[in-house]
């Protein structure tokens, strides 16, 4: 007969609790200290450079000891990332980084664990590990570089490429329907889901800080341009003339508005609930009035609204996309609970390990031959 165990419920903590901090009296760490001696080998103009730079200058702000930070990656252009950081790191195999990181995070509470992955690595070959890491809520931060193309294998469509995409492997256009990584993560009940852009360093850094502070699995989708095989995929949200209409900014506690400024300085368009479908739709602010706008609340436990917002991302060529933190809720993490079970068991079985081992193997029905 199975019973539901009474799980110890650890106090909710921030993402880096338990990771040793630098000596407050020591000189501040610099981005240079986090930069390894390896030559960076991405194509000129690759969005990965901007993200690397942002991460290198952000990591010192965490105030954690460098030796207690681990970056794990899979395979793909972005997965070379760990080589360029002077922390502990593993460039593993295709799609498996979340599984490896789960082992690291569960074994060692004192490590800050990061996964760097791409749209092919995380959503194709490694899709299973990604959704299970998210559902378990293992304390790690996953940076998913989404360039909507396979770069390292030279230009095949990826699971986030728009339908109809003509590539080397799809001369007549892809007939695959793409994943929306944010919708997928929310469907897996991820506790922290955000989207940011490689070229917006300030926003990227803010999202990284929030993700690191979150205890549990944080998924950060980073729109990242591949200048060689998918150049311009994110032009609409990067171009000065179009980005106001393309980016739907998500700011905690604020009505969601975007587009050309209205009279009050805020966007002339916004998001409101659709009474007919139960979803969320784009509205004209002047038409519906400010009070009708949806106020963003990422901390809402029910992921329904976050999911509805995520559906406003274009599945085809990207002309519109919500950017920011979609969901940020607290739920006990897998690794904290697993460690709590270990310490509960240890507390219940005091004494020398060798003695307890002798008792274990000498247990059961025994007999003695003299």
């Amino acid at each position, binding site marked *: 007969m199975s019973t539901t165990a009474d799980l110890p419920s650890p106090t909710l903590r921030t993402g880096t609790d338990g990771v040793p901090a630098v000596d407050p009296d020591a000189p501040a760490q610099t981005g240079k200290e986090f930069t390894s001696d390896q030559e960076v080998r991405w194509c000129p103009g690759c969005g990965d450079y901007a993200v690397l730079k942002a991460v290198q200058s952000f990591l010192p702000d965490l105030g954690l000891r460098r030796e*207690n930070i681990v970056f794990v990656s899979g395979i793909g252009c972005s997965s070379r990332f760990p080589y360029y950081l002077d922390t502990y790191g593993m460039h593993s195999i295709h799609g498996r980084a979340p599984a490896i990181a789960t082992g690291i995070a569960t074994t060692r509470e004192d490590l800050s664990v990061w996964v760097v992955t791409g749209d092919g690595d995380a959503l194709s070959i490694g899709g299973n590990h990604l959704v299970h890491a998210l559902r378990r809520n293992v304390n790690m931060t996953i940076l998913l570089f989404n360039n909507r193309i396979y770069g390292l294998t030279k230009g095949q469509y990826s699971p986030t490429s728009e339908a109809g995409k003509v590539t080397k492997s799809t001369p007549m256009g892809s007939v695959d329907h793409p994943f929306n990584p944010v919708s997928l993560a929310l469907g897996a009940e991820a506790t922290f889901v955000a989207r940011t852009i490689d070229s917006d360093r300030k926003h990227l850094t803010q999202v990284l800080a929030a993700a690191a502070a979150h205890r549990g699995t944080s998924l950060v989708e980073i729109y990242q341009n591949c200048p060689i095989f998918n150049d311009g995929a994110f032009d609409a949200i990067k171009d000065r003339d179009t980005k106001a209409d393309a980016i739907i900014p998500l700011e905690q506690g604020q009505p969601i508005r975007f587009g050309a400024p209205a009279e009050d300085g805020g966007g002339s368009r916004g998001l409101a609930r659709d009474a007919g479908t139960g979803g969320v739709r784009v509205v004209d602010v002047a038409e519906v009035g400010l009070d009708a706008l949806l106020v963003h609340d990422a901390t809402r436990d029910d992921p329904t609204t976050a999911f509805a917002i995520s559906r406003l991302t274009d599945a085809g060529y990207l002309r519109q996309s919500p950017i920011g933190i979609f969901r940020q809720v607290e739920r006990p993490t897998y690794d904290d609970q697993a460690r709590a079970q270990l310490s509960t068991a240890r507390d*219940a079985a005091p004494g020398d390990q060798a003695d307890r081992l002798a008792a274990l193997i000498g247990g059961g029905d025994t007999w003695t031959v003299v």
Partner: protein
Amino acid sequence: MATEVKQLDRVIIRFAGDSGDGMQLTGDRFTQESAAFGNDLVTLPNFPAEIRAPQGTLPGVSSFQVHFADHDILTAGDAPDVLVAMNPAALRANLPDLPRGATVIVDTHDFTTRNLAKAGYDANPLDSLDEPGSPLAEFAVHTVDLTGMTVGAVKEFGLSRKDASRAKNMFALGLLSWMYGRPTEHTEKFLHRRFSRVPDIRDANITAFKAGWAFGETTETFAVRYEVKPAPMAAGTYRNITGNLALAYGLVAAGVRSGLPVFLGSYPITPASDVLHELSKHKAFGVTTFQAEDEIAGIGAAIGASFSGALGVTTTSGPGVALKSESIGLAVMTELPLLVIDVQRGGPSTGLPTKTEQADLMQAMYGRNGEAPVPIVAPRSPADCFDAAIEAARIAVTYRTPVMLLSDGYLANGSEPWRIPEVDDLPVVDPGFATATNHVSTGKDGAETADFWPYLRDEATLARPWAVPGTAGLEHRIGGLEKGEGHGDISYDPANHERMVRTRQAKVDAVADSLPPLEVDDPSGQAKVLVIGWGSTYGPIGAGVRRVRRSGHHAAQVHLRHLNPFPHDLGEILGRYERVLVPEMNLGQLSTLLRARYLVDARGYHQVNGLPLKAAALAQAIGELVAEAEGVPLHELDLTAATSQEVHQ
């Protein structure tokens, strides 16, 4: 009436019934009683892959064979002396295995028209026992309504007829316990524990057990009781243990003796799941068990744990190893300690999940892309799984390498008495973590800086340093891309790749330097035939060799625990014998390796029917080679001597 008591040297009993009849439990209890009594014993559980195959059918038959003796024995026995059959299907499925004269005890209750038809009987074979041509004519058959008597015995507890009849296995156990003079107190205690929450079921089972005993004592059906005296064994405290339990204990012990926390990443798979179940109970030893989303995540998490300074372990069976292959390659490349435990079953593909086979040797040896050598360790008996687990951990940690441990379904579920070792006598495994920089680099300006090279090797073992995250100053990156020798940075240099491929091979080869000489069992020193095996065939091969020797001829036996690398003296030993026979539960995997490596005319003996090798057939095969080598006609070798003997005092 006075029951006659006969002394026997050994007995093989097979309990057989429907998969819901509790035959595994019955066999296990009889085994525990025999172990407590002091017999040597070996068991062979045999059950279908389906949890409940259609009731009463031949595919649904589950059996448990126990061989117990007053002397040292090696196998669960080729053929049962006694069959307990709980229904027509169990009778029909097991009759072909019985030797003439065997005792058959049949529960008549289920011999209904419907159940007879399900088992493929046109007529009830019990009705024609004395008629010529009866399928049971050659056997001593006892027909007993075990179920009916059980229901009658437990009437006072007011159970439904179905629940009451479920205690019939304990009635049968009680009867057999009486017949062979087994001690009963352990089983009574066990039933108390097992059913402590359901008092009426508990009492019914205990009552049925006692009623079975009493039935044997009072009825005139059974005129003879048998006695099998305790076997002489080395002094010590013993318990009966299955391979999977011994393996789990070995992993816990490896953690204690290395000071490393054990991390098991695993996905449930038959017949390996019991190791996961068992380890999940030992959190107090710092053992973490992670039930992963798939086989790949299981090994991936174990690799992550090893990188973090734990003893990473993954447990699986053949299909799981196939899925883990790329990850094993990563562990080869990153040179991290890792245990990959393959409890082999019948293959290919899903194959025979609950049956045994040893056809994953080549997969363990070569089943990866690139030159990816992995040390291989194989236990030879259920209890030996304990020592093999510690040995695998020693190699993995000392040489910073994944190690394959090849158990199999027979070892996993079979059991034997185990002399419990002293903890202080177990090997100590030293993780030897790197704690300081190991290299001095000179910059362009001539300035020297101390740094850490993750691939700078130990000269003797060729192992690289194991620097775990959290160690200041030793930050480094590893991965699946080829490493530059020493510094470990990515390198596509052709000469470096050649060097690294050869170095990884040399490191695994160097494990042989740490191995003891092989034990050659050749008591007369006159053998011309060497029989060599690995894994769970140890028992049957040993029994086969004994028969040849009893016939007055000579045969030597060597059993390999290390399949990669082979021990240094193996080539020389093979060269000493005129004939080499390699019995395996596959189509010749070890023999292929031996032929390739030593250019020896190793002849194979192959059986792939999901069951352990049989001593009689092996004796015949060994005998043929002995006859050939010694120049005697085969018929001069008496290889029988198999049936149990009455002991006269």
